[in-house]
């Protein structure tokens, strides 16, 4: 077990959030700015004196700037405060078997650059850590960002994982990574703080941080990459369960007969299954408006099927809708258990035909959601579909520095505590 400082090397720069009140104010300015000191005091519950002291520090550290004056309310006009987006940056790495995505977001949470390279599937983990370190440096240099403005790296991968030791546990697509101490090795190699998390959880945190789901009491981000997972945010906090491996909606077995008998929802929804079903249909002599890859690449095949589906091809539409139907069953079950009011779909596998999935979930929700007479459930596509998890990774590591809003990050407190 690597407790204490193992995964958290001393950072050359003073931490952003020495006190949580500082983080709270910084996040309020980020989310609600331009905002006056008086409004900040009102929103945070802090005294105006405390607000003034902390704001002065934030301005001195270059994180916040005064930006003109607001409406006068009788006395002298109030000075408004705004975040300085270029003051800090965070890196997000989305680890997949077929591709690795690197993104950089600024302090305002906006995507400033990204790099996508071929996957980690063929590399051993040590080799991959070296490659990731080089590419993070390349990306930061290439974007013209001063390295000491980078607060850390959020690494996201499909689960399951042990966040206490910072390891990925036998992910089906990255089998060599089993028990590899990814977080510590990457921290050693890069000299940056690393936050490791599940891709679906990260995607949900990213959406929350961006303000896209503000006002939701119970939200779930359903994440479809190679597999299926979900990140849950209840009352502004991530629901992490006992070990941060919650939300595995794909593991539900729905007792359907026929060709789905005994299959999990994930097995019915995932791109590889849709591709396999398409291959079988073509072998059976069905005609289709798409071509499958010679090598049988499931992601390429799924992209071709998805494209044909949105262009109205009958077979492709049927296959994608069947996947969407299975997904809807699981999402409605989840909505019923958690009394959700908001669902987002995120992840690269929704990039092309995500609209078909949104419509299927909406439709089943309207028909079968238990509390439908009481309230609706907003179903939408996430803003960043492809990079949702990587962008969420940047939010997680910014959060570690800024302690924003209401989100509790169990993994960090567990490691630090």
């Amino acid at each position, binding site marked *: 077990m690597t407790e204490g400082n193992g995964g958290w090397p001393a950072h050359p720069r003073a931490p952003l959030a020495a006190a949580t009140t500082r983080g709270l104010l910084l996040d309020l300015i980020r989310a609600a700015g331009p905002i006056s000191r008086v409004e900040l005091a009102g929103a945070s519950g802090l005294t105006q004196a405390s607000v003034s002291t902390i704001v002065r520090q934030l301005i001195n550290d270059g994180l916040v700037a005064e930006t003109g004056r607001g409406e006068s309310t009788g006395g002298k006009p109030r000075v408004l405060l705004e975040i300085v987006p270029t003051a800090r940056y965070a890196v997000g790495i989305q680890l997949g078997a*077929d591709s690795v995505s690197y993104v950089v977001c600024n302090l305002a949470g*906006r995507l400033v650059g990204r*790099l*996508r390279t071929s996957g980690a599937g063929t590399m051993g983990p040590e080799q991959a850590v070296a490659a990731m370190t*080089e590419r993070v*440096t390349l990306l930061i*240099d*290439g974007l*013209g960002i001063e390295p000491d403005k980078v607060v850390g790296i959020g690494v996201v991968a499909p689960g399951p994982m042990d966040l206490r030791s910072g390891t990925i546990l036998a992910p089906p697509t990255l089998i060599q990574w089993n028990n590899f101490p990814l977080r510590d090795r990457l921290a050693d190699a890069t000299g940056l703080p690393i936050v490791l998390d599940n891709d679906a959880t990260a995607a949900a945190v990213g959406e929350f941080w961006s303000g896209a789901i503000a006002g939701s009491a119970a939200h779930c981000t359903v994440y479809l990459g190679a597999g299926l997972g979900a990140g849950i945010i209840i009352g502004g906090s991530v629901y992490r369960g006992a070990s941060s491996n919650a939300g595995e909606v794909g593991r539900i077995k729905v007792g359907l007969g026929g060709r789905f008998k005994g299959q999990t929802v994930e097995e019915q929804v995932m791109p590889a299954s849709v591709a396999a079903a398409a291959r079988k249909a073509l072998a059976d002599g069905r005609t289709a408006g798409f071509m499958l890859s010679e090598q049988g690449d499931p992601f390429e095949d799924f992209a071709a099927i998805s494209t044909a589906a949105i262009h109205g091809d009958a077979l492709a539409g049927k296959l994608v809708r069947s996947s969407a139907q299975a997904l809807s069953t699981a999402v409605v079950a989840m909505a019923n258990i958690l009394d959700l009011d908001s669902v987002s779909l995120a992840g690269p596998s929704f990039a092309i035909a995500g*609209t078909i999935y949104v419509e299927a979930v909406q439709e089943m929700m309207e028909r079968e959601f238990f509390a439908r007479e009481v309230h609706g459930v907003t179903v939408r596509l996430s803003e960043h579909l492809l990079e949702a998890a990587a962008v969420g990774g940047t939010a997680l590591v910014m959060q570690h520095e800024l302690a924003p809003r209401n989100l509790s990050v169990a993994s960090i407190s567990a490691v630090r505590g």
Partner: protein
Amino acid sequence: MPNPATDNRSRTRRPRRNSRASGFEPIIGMVLRGGPPKPPVDHFYEAFVAGMEVAAGPRGAAVLTQVVPNVDAERLTYQRWHDQRLVAGVVLSDLVEDDDRAALLHRLGIPIVVLGEYLEGPQTVCIDVDNIAAMEQALRYLTSLGHRRIARVSGPTALLHTRDRSLAFAVSVTALGFSGLEVEGDYTAESGAAATETLLGRPDPPTAIVYDNDQMAVGGLATAHRLGIDVPRRLSLLAWDDTAVCRLARPPLSVLARDIRELGELAVRSLLDLLDGQSTVARQPAPPAVIVIRATTGPSPRSTSTG
């Protein structure tokens, strides 16, 4: 951006990475213009870059994108990528009149693939997107439905592809025999909504509106709803580019669709062919557009009431 020659304080001193050219896959760079008033995620470029990545992976290349606020920052990025010997080539898009970016890239010796227009130059390949044919196709479709008062909400007129479409619009007014009217938007839903309101407030409002992108059409649809105008019975709306927002609009928008991912794939394949010396083709035609009829286009109200 501080100039390293005059400003030593800004960057930590680190050994220059000499192995970059040998140790990394070739990197294809693209600079995207972001920030207000553009929406945080431009669905066209999202799909385009996704296509680039799909084509780059199997050829052992990687795709780097940077979002910058303006053209000055874009130029600085090219200069930096040159100084760092970072990119093998660059994708250039949204050309404007007197665009000096291609000349800069030529001077820096960076090979380019130009999206949209044809441009001659050393180490240059162009993905020729026929905006003229696409606009004519859209207008033929609308006139075939009986529309005779057709408006267009255009993108920024500084863009060359906006001008191509404007030219095609003007030519079609005569060729197809309708009265046309154009209002400039800035690609945001808000500008589409405002332009639509202006158009519908006229004494002789259009019976069909074509929009230069997806977001403006969504804004236009919202305006029609708000004004209680029945789409498509009284007003037909046609969006440009088939993105998720068009399909999720209520009712779903009819669109002039191009395979945007395919465009991205084509750009990267063409650039890599150029770099590999496999191709001397300077001009690659983009796949043609198709009209996808959903629920926002229908017969002109005049032709149904009189017919």
